[in-house]
Protein backbone atom coordinates (compact mmCIF):
# COMPACT_ATOMS: atom_id res chain seq x y z
CA UNK A 1 0.00 0.00 0.00
CA UNK A 2 2.65 2.47 1.01
CA UNK A 3 4.83 1.18 -1.80
CA UNK A 4 2.03 1.87 -4.30
CA UNK A 5 1.74 5.44 -3.07
CA UNK A 6 5.51 5.83 -3.29
CA UNK A 7 5.51 4.36 -6.78
CA UNK A 8 2.96 6.86 -8.06
CA UNK A 9 4.39 9.86 -6.22
CA UNK A 10 6.16 12.50 -8.26
CA UNK A 11 9.15 13.45 -6.17
CA UNK A 12 11.12 15.34 -8.79
CA UNK A 13 11.30 19.08 -9.11
CA UNK A 14 10.40 20.63 -12.44
CA UNK A 15 13.03 20.34 -15.13
CA UNK A 16 13.24 24.05 -15.86
CA UNK A 17 13.75 24.69 -12.16
CA UNK A 18 16.67 22.25 -12.09
CA UNK A 19 18.25 23.83 -15.16
CA UNK A 20 17.85 27.32 -13.69
CA UNK A 21 19.31 26.22 -10.37
CA UNK A 22 22.31 24.65 -12.08
CA UNK A 23 23.01 28.00 -13.71
CA UNK A 24 22.73 29.77 -10.36
CA UNK A 25 25.00 27.14 -8.77
CA UNK A 26 27.67 27.83 -11.38
CA UNK A 27 27.34 31.57 -10.82
CA UNK A 28 27.71 31.21 -7.05
CA UNK A 29 30.61 28.78 -7.32
CA UNK A 30 32.45 31.33 -9.44
CA UNK A 31 32.29 33.74 -6.51
CA UNK A 32 33.23 31.02 -4.04
CA UNK A 33 36.41 30.46 -6.06
CA UNK A 34 37.22 34.21 -6.03
CA UNK A 35 36.17 34.86 -9.60
CA UNK A 36 35.76 38.36 -10.95
CA UNK A 37 32.28 39.78 -11.70
CA UNK A 38 33.08 40.06 -15.40
CA UNK A 39 33.01 36.25 -15.61
CA UNK A 40 29.58 35.95 -13.99
CA UNK A 41 27.43 35.87 -17.12
CA UNK A 42 29.56 33.27 -18.99
CA UNK A 43 29.61 31.07 -15.89
CA UNK A 44 25.84 31.26 -15.56
CA UNK A 45 25.24 30.47 -19.23
CA UNK A 46 27.78 27.66 -19.39
CA UNK A 47 26.49 25.95 -16.25
CA UNK A 48 22.91 26.19 -17.45
CA UNK A 49 23.68 24.95 -20.95
CA UNK A 50 25.98 22.19 -19.75
CA UNK A 51 23.42 20.73 -17.38
CA UNK A 52 20.66 21.02 -19.99
CA UNK A 53 22.71 19.25 -22.68
CA UNK A 54 23.83 16.58 -20.23
CA UNK A 55 20.27 15.78 -19.14
CA UNK A 56 18.84 15.81 -22.68
CA UNK A 57 21.56 13.66 -24.22
CA UNK A 58 21.52 11.32 -21.25
CA UNK A 59 17.81 10.76 -21.80
CA UNK A 60 18.25 10.31 -25.56
CA UNK A 61 21.36 8.17 -25.97
CA UNK A 62 21.97 5.03 -23.99
CA UNK A 63 25.77 5.26 -24.10
CA UNK A 64 27.24 5.65 -20.64
CA UNK A 65 29.37 8.71 -19.88
CA UNK A 66 28.55 10.31 -23.25
CA UNK A 67 26.18 12.83 -21.68
CA UNK A 68 28.86 14.22 -19.37
CA UNK A 69 31.30 14.36 -22.28
CA UNK A 70 28.86 16.37 -24.41
CA UNK A 71 28.00 18.66 -21.52
CA UNK A 72 31.62 19.51 -20.81
CA UNK A 73 32.27 20.07 -24.53
CA UNK A 74 29.49 22.66 -24.56
CA UNK A 75 30.80 24.28 -21.38
CA UNK A 76 34.33 24.58 -22.77
CA UNK A 77 33.05 25.99 -26.07
CA UNK A 78 30.99 28.67 -24.33
CA UNK A 79 33.87 29.58 -22.05
CA UNK A 80 36.36 29.91 -24.93
CA UNK A 81 33.90 31.96 -27.00
CA UNK A 82 33.22 34.31 -24.10
CA UNK A 83 36.92 34.79 -23.36
CA UNK A 84 37.72 35.48 -26.99
CA UNK A 85 34.83 37.65 -28.08
CA UNK A 86 33.61 39.27 -24.86
CA UNK A 87 35.33 40.90 -21.92
CA UNK A 88 35.72 37.82 -19.75
CA UNK A 89 39.07 37.25 -18.10
CA UNK A 90 39.82 33.84 -16.67
CA UNK A 91 39.04 30.81 -18.79
CA UNK A 92 39.82 28.25 -16.08
CA UNK A 93 37.48 29.72 -13.49
CA UNK A 94 34.57 29.84 -15.93
CA UNK A 95 35.13 26.20 -16.86
CA UNK A 96 35.51 25.04 -13.26
CA UNK A 97 32.35 26.86 -12.21
CA UNK A 98 30.39 25.62 -15.20
CA UNK A 99 31.41 22.03 -14.69
CA UNK A 100 30.38 21.95 -11.02
CA UNK A 101 26.80 20.66 -11.57
CA UNK A 102 28.17 17.71 -13.57
CA UNK A 103 31.10 16.37 -11.58
CA UNK A 104 30.52 13.31 -9.39
CA UNK A 105 30.87 14.24 -5.74
CA UNK A 106 27.92 12.40 -4.28
CA UNK A 107 28.95 9.00 -5.79
CA UNK A 108 32.43 9.39 -4.35
CA UNK A 109 30.97 10.11 -0.92
CA UNK A 110 28.56 7.21 -1.26
CA UNK A 111 31.32 4.88 -2.40
CA UNK A 112 33.42 5.65 0.67
CA UNK A 113 30.37 5.29 2.90
CA UNK A 114 29.52 1.95 1.33
CA UNK A 115 33.03 0.67 1.81
CA UNK A 116 33.04 1.80 5.43
CA UNK A 117 29.78 -0.06 5.93
CA UNK A 118 31.35 -3.24 4.58
CA UNK A 119 29.66 -3.23 1.17
CA UNK A 120 32.91 -3.64 -0.71
CA UNK A 121 31.58 -4.52 -4.15
CA UNK A 122 29.03 -1.71 -4.20
CA UNK A 123 31.63 0.74 -3.01
CA UNK A 124 34.19 -0.25 -5.61
CA UNK A 125 31.72 -0.18 -8.51
CA UNK A 126 30.38 3.22 -7.52
CA UNK A 127 33.88 4.54 -7.12
CA UNK A 128 34.88 3.32 -10.57
CA UNK A 129 31.74 4.86 -12.07
CA UNK A 130 32.53 8.19 -10.44
CA UNK A 131 36.10 8.03 -11.71
CA UNK A 132 34.96 7.29 -15.26
CA UNK A 133 32.44 10.15 -15.13
CA UNK A 134 35.18 12.51 -14.03
CA UNK A 135 37.36 11.16 -16.84
CA UNK A 136 34.59 11.86 -19.37
CA UNK A 137 34.24 15.45 -18.18
CA UNK A 138 37.98 16.02 -18.35
CA UNK A 139 38.15 14.46 -21.80
CA UNK A 140 35.40 16.76 -23.07
CA UNK A 141 37.20 19.88 -21.91
CA UNK A 142 40.53 18.53 -23.15
CA UNK A 143 39.28 17.82 -26.65
CA UNK A 144 38.08 21.40 -27.02
CA UNK A 145 41.38 22.69 -25.69
CA UNK A 146 43.26 20.60 -28.25
CA UNK A 147 41.09 21.73 -31.14
CA UNK A 148 41.08 25.44 -30.28
CA UNK A 149 44.41 25.41 -28.52
CA UNK A 150 46.15 27.69 -31.00
CA UNK A 151 43.56 30.43 -30.83
CA UNK A 152 43.43 31.05 -27.10
Amino acid at each position, binding site marked *: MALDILDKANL*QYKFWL*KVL*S*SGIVSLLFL*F*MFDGSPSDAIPAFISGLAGYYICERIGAYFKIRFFAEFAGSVVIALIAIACVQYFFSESLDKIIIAGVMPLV*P*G*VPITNAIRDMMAGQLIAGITKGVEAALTAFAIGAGVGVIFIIFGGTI
Partner: protein
Amino acid sequence: MIIFQAFISFFATLFFSIIFNAPRKLLIACGFVGAIGWIVYYIANSNGLSDAVSIFLEASPLVYVHISLQESTSVLSSSLMYQVSYHSSPGVSLTMQQRT
Protein backbone atom coordinates in the same frame (compact mmCIF):
# COMPACT_ATOMS: atom_id res chain seq x y z
CA MET B 1 34.51 38.74 3.10
CA ILE B 2 33.60 35.81 5.33
CA ILE B 3 30.00 37.02 5.54
CA PHE B 4 29.89 37.24 1.76
CA GLN B 5 31.31 33.72 1.44
CA ALA B 6 28.75 32.38 3.93
CA PHE B 7 25.93 34.04 2.02
CA ILE B 8 27.15 32.68 -1.32
CA SER B 9 27.69 29.14 -0.05
CA PHE B 10 24.27 29.10 1.64
CA PHE B 11 22.54 29.71 -1.68
CA ALA B 12 24.91 27.45 -3.61
CA THR B 13 24.04 24.52 -1.36
CA LEU B 14 20.35 25.37 -1.55
CA PHE B 15 20.28 25.31 -5.33
CA PHE B 16 22.38 22.15 -5.40
CA SER B 17 19.75 20.52 -3.23
CA ILE B 18 17.11 21.51 -5.78
CA ILE B 19 19.13 19.82 -8.54
CA PHE B 20 19.26 16.62 -6.49
CA ASN B 21 15.60 16.63 -5.44
CA ALA B 22 15.96 17.29 -1.75
CA PRO B 23 12.64 17.47 0.10
CA ARG B 24 11.19 20.94 0.10
CA LYS B 25 11.19 21.42 3.86
CA LEU B 26 14.88 20.52 4.10
CA LEU B 27 16.16 23.12 1.63
CA ILE B 28 16.87 25.82 4.22
CA ALA B 29 18.56 23.27 6.47
CA CYS B 30 20.77 22.12 3.61
CA GLY B 31 21.76 25.71 3.00
CA PHE B 32 22.75 26.27 6.62
CA VAL B 33 24.83 23.12 6.82
CA GLY B 34 26.62 23.93 3.58
CA ALA B 35 27.34 27.49 4.72
CA ILE B 36 28.79 26.34 8.06
CA GLY B 37 30.98 23.74 6.39
CA TRP B 38 32.28 26.15 3.80
CA ILE B 39 33.10 28.77 6.47
CA VAL B 40 35.20 26.28 8.43
CA TYR B 41 36.98 25.26 5.22
CA TYR B 42 37.54 28.85 4.19
CA ILE B 43 38.99 29.96 7.52
CA ALA B 44 41.24 26.91 7.77
CA ASN B 45 42.42 27.18 4.19
CA SER B 46 43.12 30.91 4.32
CA ASN B 47 45.22 30.40 7.47
CA GLY B 48 47.71 28.25 5.64
CA LEU B 49 46.40 24.76 6.24
CA SER B 50 46.44 22.41 3.29
CA ASP B 51 43.34 21.34 1.40
CA ALA B 52 43.12 17.91 2.94
CA VAL B 53 43.43 19.19 6.52
CA SER B 54 40.85 21.91 5.87
CA ILE B 55 38.35 19.41 4.50
CA PHE B 56 38.99 17.09 7.44
CA LEU B 57 38.24 19.95 9.84
CA GLU B 58 35.16 20.86 7.82
CA ALA B 59 33.61 17.43 8.16
CA SER B 60 33.23 17.43 11.94
CA PRO B 61 30.91 20.46 12.29
CA LEU B 62 29.00 19.15 9.28
CA VAL B 63 28.23 15.93 11.10
CA TYR B 64 27.36 17.76 14.32
CA VAL B 65 24.93 20.16 12.66
CA HIS B 66 23.50 17.34 10.64
CA ILE B 67 22.72 15.26 13.74
CA SER B 68 21.17 18.18 15.60
CA LEU B 69 19.03 19.04 12.59
CA GLN B 70 17.93 15.45 12.47
CA GLU B 71 16.75 15.68 16.07
CA SER B 72 14.98 19.01 15.64
CA THR B 73 13.21 18.33 12.36
CA SER B 74 12.61 14.62 13.04
CA VAL B 75 13.49 13.84 9.44
CA LEU B 76 15.90 11.12 8.48
CA SER B 77 18.75 13.30 7.35
CA SER B 78 20.93 10.94 5.39
CA SER B 79 19.81 12.77 2.27
CA LEU B 80 20.77 16.04 3.94
CA MET B 81 24.28 14.73 4.42
CA TYR B 82 24.51 13.82 0.76
CA GLN B 83 23.47 17.27 -0.35
CA VAL B 84 25.91 19.14 1.81
CA SER B 85 29.00 16.99 1.46
CA TYR B 86 29.80 18.26 -2.00
CA HIS B 87 32.49 20.58 -0.65
CA SER B 88 34.47 17.64 0.59
CA SER B 89 34.29 15.82 -2.69
CA PRO B 90 34.73 17.22 -6.16
CA GLY B 91 31.17 17.99 -7.12
CA VAL B 92 27.98 16.02 -7.26
CA SER B 93 26.71 13.50 -9.78
CA LEU B 94 23.29 13.01 -11.23
CA THR B 95 22.70 9.53 -9.95
CA MET B 96 21.57 10.52 -6.46
CA GLN B 97 17.87 10.80 -6.02
CA GLN B 98 17.73 9.91 -2.36
CA ARG B 99 14.56 10.96 -0.61
CA THR B 100 13.63 10.75 3.04
